[in-house]
Every structure is written in structure tokens, then in C-alpha cells.
């Protein structure tokens, strides 16, 4: 049994090639998009990709937190996979921090209108919101949020690795459950107060600073959460295909598939709830968000978003057999990840650079982030044993039956 993951040279090369594409796109974008309006697309592309991939990797930590608090045992056999994915949060968090602070402090007013003090003064709505929406609050929220996330993912990871060295007795078993529950509880509270509410407001919703939606944070959260599950599935199947994780079988895959299925529907529920209330009330200051998306240039993307993130998983994952098949799960996971990347694209694009463009720049940056995630996660997977052998629920996970 292969206990520890050894990073294959091919995977390393792939990650470097993808990161190279990302850096190259960044450089081309930097020189291609300049001037007052040109640089808007440069920053919008960076904001879209960094927030998407940061939230997707953070969803892995949420997976650990939620399953631990629910006293779930089934995920223990592959718990090291979401753990390793969540370890991409520090690097991606620092990248995002740099990007948003540069946007705010170099005064990119086509991304965030509210950074222009003169503009805010003459704008009734923005001046009313300025107690919350100002540079100081933005920086403080972002720094505290990312700092707390980094602290918690490191803490959860370090605790798990530390437990490998303990002797397995009833007392240590209880201690493992207790301290994991406590720390996961703390993390869930932080996660709920950040991803569940404030973070999407300040990073993404403040692009359309005049507009607001109470659904927005949940919508962003579930978009990242369902993509996070897709990412876990991809790494899981990759390890399985390479002969690792012998205790993980289609039963575990089936449950992950149910998550992907259920939360795709939940995403649609929020997508629709946000849309319908605004459509029904038909108030000008509210429909301003949907105007370019539903009746403007972005119309095909808006409906493609629904097709790829709702209809595709709904019909594809409905059958039991597709949820238990490794190849079909890889296919639908890629579809879900691409779909929610498009979702983030249509959340950022219409409010910043307005016109629908072929997203070569955004996709190139996305490839760079994918390469970075592969690089970090594969490195983290090789650092510790793939199975947390002392976890008391390990047996429950091995004999798991859906």
C-alpha cells in the first residue's frame, strides 16, 4: 500500500506550464490593457480569478468543518485531500490581498466607484454608504478575513498531522474528536461571518455599489462551495487513478456526487430567488444589476450560466450510476468548475468593463491559478500520510456504505 503521495514529474511539469501560461497572460494583459479604461479589464480579470480560486480552495476547509461538526465519519479516509487543498488558502489569500489593495489604493474607480472620494461626495447613495464602504474598512475587513482564514486552515491541518504521531487509545480518540470539533466550530463561525456575509459584499458586490442584494453572499458562497466539492472530487480521482487511497471507493464518490448534485440545485434556488424578487418588483435601482446581464450583451452568458450550472448537473448526476463512476464524475466536476468560473466572470465583468469580450485574458489567468493550486496541493499531499490513521472514525469511513 502506497502510504505517501509522491509528486509525479509529469504533474509538476503540468503545473509549471499552467503557471507559465498565467504569468505570460498577466504580462501580455499588463501591456495590452493600459490607459484609463484599458486597465479596468486587467484588474477585473485578476479580481475575478483570485476571488474565485481563493473561495474554492477555502470551501475545502468548510468541507472539513461542516463534516466534523456533523460528526460525519465517511470522509475520514480521504480527509487529507480537502486538507491539502485548503493549504492553498495562504498563498491565494496573499495574492488576493495584494490585488484588492492595489485596486483600492491606486484608485481603480472603474472597478470600485466608491474609491473616488470626489465622486462619493456628490453621490447620495454612496455617501450614505461610505461609513461602511471606505478604504479603511475595506482594508481592515480584508486583512482580518484573510488572516483568520489562514490561521484556521493552518490550525486544522497541523492538528491533523500532529495526531498521526499519537498512540491510539480511547482517551486520545476522545481528545481528537473534542479538539477538532471545537476548532471546526470556531472556523465555521468565522466562515459564516465572512463568506456567508461580509466578504462577497466588499470584494464583489461593491463593484455595483449602488445596488445590493441580500442573496448575494449566499449565492457567492454556494457557487464556491459546489466548485470546491468538484475540486475535491478531481484530486480524489487523480489519487485513486494513481493507485493511492485504497480505502476510498465508489461509496465515498457517491456521497460527494450527492453533494455536488444537491448544492447545484441549491445554487439554482439562490440564483432564482435573487432574480425573481427583482424581476417581480421591477424597481429601477434594483434591476440595474440584471439590465446588462439579461437584456444586454451578457444575455448568452447569463443563460449559459444557468444551463451549465443547473441543467447539466441536474440531469447528469440524477442517476446513481453516474455518481459512482470515476470518469463521469471527473467530467461533471470539470463542467461544474468551468460553469462557476463563468458565474464569477458574469458577476464581475458587466459591472467593470461592461462589454462582453472573448475571455482569453481571464482564462489565461485562470490557467495560472489552476497551475498554482496543483503545485501547492500536490506538494502538500506528499508532506503527510494520505490516511489519518489515528482518527477514531476511520473504521466507519472504510466500511462506509451509502
Amino acid at each position, binding site marked *: 500500500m502506497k502510504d505517501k503521495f509522491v509528486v509525479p514529474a509529469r504533474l509538476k511539469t503540468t503545473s509549471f506550464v499552467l503557471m507559465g501560461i498565467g504569468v505570460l497572460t498577466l504580462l501580455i494583459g499588463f501591456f495590452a490593457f493600459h490607459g484609463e479604461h484599458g486597465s479596468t479589464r486587467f484588474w477585473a480579470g485578476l479580481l475575478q480569478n483570485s476571488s474565485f480560486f481563493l473561495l474554492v480552495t477555502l470551501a475545502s476547509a468548510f468541507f472539513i468543518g461542516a463534516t466534523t461538526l456533523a460528526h460525519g465519519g465517511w470522509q475520514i479516509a480521504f480527509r487529507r485531500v480537502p486538507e491539502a487543498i485548503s493549504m492553498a488558502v495562504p498563498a491565494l489569500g496573499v495574492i488576493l490581498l495584494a490585488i484588492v489593495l492595489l485596486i483600492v489604493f491606486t484608485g481603480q474607480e472603474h472597478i470600485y466607484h466608491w474609491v473616488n472620494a470626489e465622486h462619493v461626495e456628490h453621490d447620495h447613495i454612496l455617501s450614505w454608504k461610505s461609513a461602511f464602504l471606505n478604504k479603511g474598512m475595506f482594508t481592515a475587513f480584508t486583512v482580518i478575513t484573510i488572516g483568520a482564514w489562514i490561521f484556521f486552515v493552518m490550525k486544522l491541518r497541523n492538528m491533523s498531522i500532529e495526531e498521526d504521531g499519537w498512540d491510539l487509545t480511547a482517551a486520545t480518540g476522545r481528545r481528537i474528536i473534542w479538539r477538532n470539533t471545537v476548532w471546526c466550530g470556531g472556523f465555521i463561525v468565522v466562515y459564516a461571518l465572512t463568506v456567508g456575509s461580509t466578504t462577497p459584499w466588499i470584494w464583489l458586490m461593491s463593484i455595483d455599489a449602488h445596488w445590493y442584494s441580500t442573496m448575494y453572499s449566499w449565492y457567492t458562497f454556494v457557487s464556491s462551495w459546489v466548485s470546491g466539492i468538484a475540486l475535491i472530487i478531481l484530486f480524489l480521482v487523480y489519487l485513486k487513478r494513481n493507485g493511492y487511497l485504497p480505502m476510498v471507493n465508489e461509496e465515498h464518490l457517491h456521497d460527494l456526487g450527492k453533494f455536488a448534485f444537491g448544492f447545484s440545485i441549491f445554487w439554482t434556488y439562490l440564483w*432564482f430567488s435573487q*432574480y*425573481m424578487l427583482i424581476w*417581480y418588483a*421591477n424597481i429601477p435601482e434594483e434591476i440595474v444589476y440584471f439590465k446588462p446581464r439579461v437584456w444586454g450583451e451578457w444575455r448568452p452568458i447569463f443563460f449559459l450560466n444557468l444551463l451549465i450550472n443547473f441543467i447539466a448537473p441536474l440531469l447528469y448526476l*440524477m442517476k*446513481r450510476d453516474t455518481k459512482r463512476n470515476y470518469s463521469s464524475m471527473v467530467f461533471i466536476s470539470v463542467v461544474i468548475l468551468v460553469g462557476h468560473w463563468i458565474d464569477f466572470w458574469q458577476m464581475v465583468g458587466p459591472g467593470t468593463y461592461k462589454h462582453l469580450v472573448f475571455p482569453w485574458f481571464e482564462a489565461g489567468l485562470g490557467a495560472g491559478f489552476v497551475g498554482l493550486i496543483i503545485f501547492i496541493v500536490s506538494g502538500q499531499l506528499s508532506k503527510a500520510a494520505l490516511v489519518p490513521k489515528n482518527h477514531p472514525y476511520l473504521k466507519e469511513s472504510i466500511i462506509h*456504505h451509502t
Partner: protein
Amino acid sequence: MAVKNFVVASFSDEAVLFPAVKKVRTAGYKIHDVYTPFPVHGLDHAMGLRETSLHTAGFIYGITGTTTALSCMSWIFNSDWPMNIGGKPHFPLPAFIPITFELTVLFSAVGMVLTFCYLCQLAPFVKKHIFNPRQTDDLFVMAIEVTAKTNAEELKTFLASIGGQQINEQRVEAGWWFGRFDREDRLFENKGVEAVNA
């Protein structure tokens, strides 16, 4: 419905039940059913039951609900009684979605419950024979049908050898019947409960 002969054995533990089910099937006996105090994971596979078609039925009921809701509402608001509500079009799809969703759920839920009752032959006031009163309490009870080819005595010895307890033979109604358990003596008709292995 038919009155049939059954050899009934009780098992005290899941760990005894699973190998016993496997051995009984390998020996070629026909398991009528296994009654357990709680849902046992994997028992359906061990018994060789086919996948249930309940979910397919649920999908069909759901689709029926969707079409019913959409066609009914669009008929009402387009041809039967067109109304102008808040200047919305006569086919306001977003406004139809919640009702469509609810009818889909309602049709599939009610339909699946009824289908489930039909498949399990359950209905109000309908009774089925209880092979052992403790089958809903703490015992795993296996009923094996005695066919023309079965040697009941041989089967009893065989069940005792694989961990069966309270082995007895019962001649009972295999399907459902109307009545009350306390007024019918069917339940304890063959009261010769001999604890072979006790």
C-alpha cells in the same frame, strides 16, 4: 393470496445474519423475506434483491407535476382568463417557477409514498403476518419458503448449524389480510415455537 409453509429462524446479531443469508442462498433455499429491527446497510445486496424502481417512478411523477403546473397555469393565464397583473406578460415564466417547483415536489412525494405502499403491500387496516413478535424489537428474523422441493427437517437442521435460533415451521397467509391481530389467532397459530438452539 395464498397460504404457504415457512421455516422461520431468528438471529441475534447482524454479524451472524449476513453469513447466514449468504449460506442459505448458496444452499439454494428461497428466502421469503428478512425482518430486521432497523435498516441494515447492504442486506438488500446480500439477499440479491433487485434495485428498486421507486426512483424512476418518482422521476415520472415529478415530470408529471411539472407539466401539470406549467400547462395548467399557462392555459389559465393565456386562453381561459387572461389577466394583466402588474404589467407582466401573459406567460410570466419566473412567476410560474415556485408553483411549478411545488407541484413537482408534491406529485413526486405523494406518488412515491403511494407507490412504496403498493410495492410493500401496505395500506390502512391491512395486516400481514408477523413471523416473530420480536422482529421489530431485537431479533433478525428470516423466513424461508417451503416449496415442493424443500425438505423442511433438513432445512431446520441447516439453519441451526448456521446460527439460527427459535427455529420453527409456520403455515400462514403470505399476503395481506383484513382484521385485527388481537382477534385473529393467525399470529400465534402455530404456537409450537421450539427453541432448537436455545
